[in-house]
């Protein structure tokens, strides 16, 4: 008695189909991989994506300590960040290996969240170091260069844009923390960098993120307003003094 196997994104094998006395004879032979191999690959990729997400979040957490650190501390943080980034790259190399000779887009949904989170982290890192926006090209070549076998890992435009959207969230936190630290020039710089994604968006996922970004931006504007207005009442030096006393970055 044959069974119907369900493909594409469905992991269990279906029950037997022999209702009304007809046995559905369904076999699939034209696939390079068995269904089982495909499922296993997908599972591996999902796991690597999750690991990448967790490690990237940790990297972001670390990077938030950078602005409030002294110069030597700052160097240490960036060294540590670089090494964390390298170990995340290992995940990408494993994924490249597993995807080799297979359909990239077939599995894209499995690892896309990890890629986005990684981009968020490295965009943030690049911004802290150079105050510029990391290009997609550079992000890809970084991964390739660190691969002993020189494999290329493809990052889609959409993942890159979604990564930027998330990155603006971190930029916002950075703003609020800089405010708490009394670093007014920094705040100005961040605020100028906070990019608008174009409003003419007809992709739903991106559209949603854009709305969240706009709300975040308005929150930051209100915080900056608050500080500015308070700053008009007291000499700037006093604000800075106090900031050095008990300033606590409020990142998370």
């Amino acid at each position, binding site marked *: 008695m044959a069974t119907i196997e369900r493909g594409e994104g469905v992991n269990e094998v279906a029950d037997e189909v022999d209702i009304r006395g007809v046995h559905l004879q369904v076999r699939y032979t034209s696939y390079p991989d068995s269904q089982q191999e495909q499922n296993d690959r997908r599972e591996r990729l999902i796991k690597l994506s999750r690991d990448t997400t967790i490690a990237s979040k940790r990297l972001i957490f670390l990077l938030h300590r950078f602005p409030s650190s002294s110069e030597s501390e700052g160097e240490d943080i960036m060294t540590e960040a670089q090494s964390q980034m390298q170990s995340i790259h290992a995940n990408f190399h494993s994924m490249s290996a597993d995807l080799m000779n297979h359909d990239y887009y077939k599995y894209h949904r499995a690892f896309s969240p990890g890629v986005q989170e990684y981009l968020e982290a490295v965009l943030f890192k690049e911004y802290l170091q150079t105050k510029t926006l990391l290009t997609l090209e550079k992000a890809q070549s970084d991964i390739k260069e660190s691969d002993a076998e020189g494999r290329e890992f493809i990052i889609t435009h959409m993942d890159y844009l979604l990564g930027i959207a998330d990155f603006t969230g971190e930029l916002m936190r950075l703003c609020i923390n800089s405010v708490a630290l009394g670093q007014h020039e920094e705040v100005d710089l961040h605020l*100028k960098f906070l990019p608008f994604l174009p409003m003419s968006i007809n992709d739903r996922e991106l559209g949603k993120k854009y709305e969240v970004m706009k709300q975040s931006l308005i929150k930051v504007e209100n915080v900056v307003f608050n500080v*500015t207005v308070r700053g008009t009442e007291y000499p700037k030096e006093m604000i800075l003094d106090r900031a050095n006393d008990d300033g606590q970055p409020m990142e998370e």
Partner: protein
Amino acid sequence: MEEAFSKCNEIMEAESKVREDMKPLIKEIERISRSMSATMQQIHGKISQIEEICDKALSQVPELQTNFVQLSNSIPKGMQYKYQMSWKHSLGQVVFVFVLSEWLKNNHLVKLETITERVLGAARDNGLSIELEDYLFGICSVPNELSRLCVNSVTASNYTLPLRISQFVGEIYAGFRLLNLKNDGLRKKYDGIKYDMKKIEEVVYDISIRKLIPVPQQ
């Protein structure tokens, strides 16, 4: 009977064609009005360049008009209202841009006729129009944007703009109070102005308690 139904088919094909002709024009109208509205968003980051930004947004109006005129030519006479839902939303965005930019530049509330003339041009003679309702909806969106601008102008050390804004939004609010609104959506939107007004008053409060503006004489 077959003949009767054949005739029906012909009529349906003709109507189909009108819709097909309209489609690319409406897409273009949507693109331009979205772009105008997006341009206006830049005022928050560049308080000092507000006039230039307004001009840039309005510079797309002639292109918009061209499309509206073509659109009006493609619609059979007397049927403009049948299709108006297709461009209503875009008109709303355009009214918003007009009201906002005209006030920022010239400090007055732009009239419905002015917008109609500049946006629709000859399309008006072909039966297209901006409904009063759309005009009022557009005005209703302005206070929210201005309450945000109020905050950002203080950040940019501009303490006079908040006072101007406070007065303008107060006037809009008072103006709407005079209207006998029957449209529920509009009434709701108008109710929302109260929150914008409150936000603006709080900003004025913050700069006034810190003596950043002269104490007002009543």
